[in-house]
């Protein structure tokens, strides 16, 4: 049952709904008319159009900060804000307890020595290139030559290195902004561009997705807390190729349910990797992932997908993680694509977005986990290009690169 959206009310049994919200298809529930009346002056602003981006309006920022300090803002139960941070969308009907912690830090700089992907300068994509996916002809799925594969393999190993080094920095008290700065510095030290930076305008160099965030969380001033789960989604561009991988990590000690969610998500990915070889229809991937997650009472997110990766950050094919028959095409030697299931800890696969237009959260506020690897289809099966050095392949025809993740890389000081 929904949590009451009333100010300073934490009733978990809210069965009433604001009629105006219902009209607008906004999900907000209240425990009763009294609580609703008390919250009305704040609540009603939910009905108006979304506010302008906060960076455009200093007054709004000040107002938000003031409201935050007075403790009167926020709908539902938000976690307390870190000192010196504020929620730029105090009246947004958040589905869970996590809140954005603004202001974001200044945009990270990239020296001229690092080669940029085409979108890095203006944040927009060549639309022809951006339309990856099933609706494009199957002929658009790239098959790499062995020379290209060698370059791609190196880039993927570097991606794994950045992920494992950054994961070592995860501990209570560290902010996601610190993790972002760390990823950025590590990319710069290895002469590579962090692919998320300015991709469609994304403001940071890594996606950090905490608890109910499914994906595309923006690093900010929030400190990691004991018991959180956090996904680090690392993508970088070097020598003309992108890599893309991610994993979900515990912060300190986590509860058993969160651990089960993480384990199931990883298992579902490994089950999918197990079937990757020439001739396997892409549509079979969902048949491996969804039943694995359904069996635990979890659900597979449908809105976000895996994708081809290589010269473009995202290219065809589109890899669906849920059961479906419409995905087209068969795996062929030389193709590289990601599989990256996002799994919610309830039966609701639904996605909501925060007002930052990026952060994707579960509609019911439950936690969500994700793992991602980049897979190369080989003559005999597949190679998990982004695999951890100690990855145990789930089948005989699955291999991992002989190059270690930390081979010929530059490392930097810990946070």
């Amino acid at each position: 049952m929904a949590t009451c959206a009333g100010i300073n009310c934490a009733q978990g049994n809210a069965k009433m709904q604001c009629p105006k919200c219902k009209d607008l298809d906004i999900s907000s529930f209240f425990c009763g008319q009294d609580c609703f009346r008390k919250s009305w002056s704040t609540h009603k602003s939910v009905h108006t159009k979304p506010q302008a981006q906060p960076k455009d309006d200093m007054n709004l920022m000040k107002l938000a900060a003031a409201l935050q300090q007075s403790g009167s803002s926020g709908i539902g139960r938000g976690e307390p804000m870190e000192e010196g941070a504020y929620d730029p969308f105090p009246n947004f009907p958040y589905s869970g307890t996590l809140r954005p912690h603004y202001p974001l830090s200044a945009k990270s700089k990239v020296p001229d020595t690092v080669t940029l992907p085409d979108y890095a300068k203006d944040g927009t994509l060549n639309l022809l290139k951006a339309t990856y996916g099933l609706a494009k002809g199957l002929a658009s799925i790239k098959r790499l030559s062995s020379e290209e594969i060698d370059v791609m393999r190196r880039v993927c190993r570097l991606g794994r290195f950045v992920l494992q080094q950054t994961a070592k920095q995860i501990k209570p008290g560290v902010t996601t902004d610190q993790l972002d700065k760390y990823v950025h510095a590590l990319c710069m030290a290895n002469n590579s561009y962090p692919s998320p930076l300015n991709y469609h305008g994304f403001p940071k160099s890594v996606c950090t997705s905490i608890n109910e965030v499914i994906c595309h969380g923006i690093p900010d001033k929030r400190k990691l807390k004991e018991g959180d789960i956090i996904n680090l989604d690392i993508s970088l561009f070097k020598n003309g190729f992108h890599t893309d991988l991610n994993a979900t990590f515990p912060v300190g000690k986590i509860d058993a349910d969160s651990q089960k969610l993480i384990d199931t998500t990883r298992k579902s990915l490994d089950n999918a990797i197990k079937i990757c070889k020439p001739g396997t229809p892409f549509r079979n991937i969902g048949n491996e992932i969804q039943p694995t997650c359904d069996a635990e009472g979890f659900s597979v997110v449908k809105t976000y997908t895996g994708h081809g990766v290589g010269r473009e950050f995202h290219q065809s094919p589109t890899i669906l993680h849920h059961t479906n028959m419409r995905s087209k095409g068969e795996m062929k030697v030389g193709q590289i694509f990601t599989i990256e299931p996002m799994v919610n800890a309830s039966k609701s696969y639904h996605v909501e977005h925060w007002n930052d237009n990026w952060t994707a959260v579960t509609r019911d506020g439950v936690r969500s986990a994700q793992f991602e690897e980049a897979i190369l289809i080989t003559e005999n099966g597949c190679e998990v290009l982004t695999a951890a050095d100690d990855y145990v392949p789930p089948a005989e025809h699955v291999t991992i690169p002989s190059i270690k993740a930390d081979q010929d890389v530059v490392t930097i000081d810990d946070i």
Partner: protein
Amino acid sequence: MAGDSDYDTEIPELIEASDSADQSKRVPLTILTGYLGAGKSTLISHILTKKHGHRIAVIVNEFGDTADIERRAVNVGDQEELLELDNGCLCCSIRDAGVAAIAKMMRRKGKFDYIVLETTGLADPSGLAEMFWENELYIPDIYLDGVVCVVDAKNVLEQLDSDSRRSANECVRQIASADSVIINKQDLVSESALAEVRDALNAINATAAVHLTTYGVLDLSQVINLNAYNSVSKEVKSNSSGNHDKHNHDDNHSHSHSNTHLFGISSVQVPLPMLTQEQYGTLDKWLRSVLWESTLPCVSTSSADMEILRSKGVVSVQGVVYILQGVRDMYELKAAPAEQTQTQAQTQIHKGKIVIIGKNVDEALFTSSLTRFLGI
């Protein structure tokens, strides 16, 4: 600062929270296509102005070639212009958007009963149809209801003729991709001319429902609620029971034949007997080869120039009815909805049929390929 309206100042009474059933209701989307001047605009103004009791969002958009659309924006920001009409309908244009933006607009403006998406007169709608059909898989709010094509009875043959002399043949592609064809301005042509138009349409697309109208005034049920991607059309079904379709061909043999040749795009129909479970698997393999790899198994002729726009079919597998739906190289085989299975059982149809609409498709070759591959 502007004052609040009375409505906003007054605190409304809370209402009982309804189950999320409402939220999960999916909204059908019709793609409206047709050559410039065929009568699309008249049809749209009819939808936007008449009291028909439906809340319909009409999206007028230069979606243009699907290659220019940002298919599914990762970033859900959007720009749109909205016009709300007296009959509860909404007319809007969403630039460079796609399904995510439409879904977001719905969340803001409340759900519609139907969405009608107008394409430019020069677009091949099959790419758009594939995009929306694919998007159902990730954005559950909207589903593709079908493609409606408006043609002008007076000029359509001329347009088809002019099309056939150019490589970009939008008019014939629009008809080929349609699930419902509306012949407008029927009052302006003679009965024999109308028969010729029907004949040409049938040669290109044997499975579309055909409706006649004047001034674009028609029953809305011919435009919305087609359910064309989720069922077997009665046109596919009726033909599967016998040779009704062949009979028509005989009547107008000269027309059909020359039209097929002329337009480059035609329908092929391959009848199927009741299949075993194993043969059903083999049929799926055949479809993978034909639709994904553009290769006709078991025949030696090259199929390099083949381009498939739409596939449909009904297959009986040991008494269970399955339907085939496909657009371009994407397809789906699934068990028919229960009520359809019942109808099938009542009419004792155990025979099936595959219909493929496309460019450079040959009925004899397809028949031979499929029957040999299935071993029937």
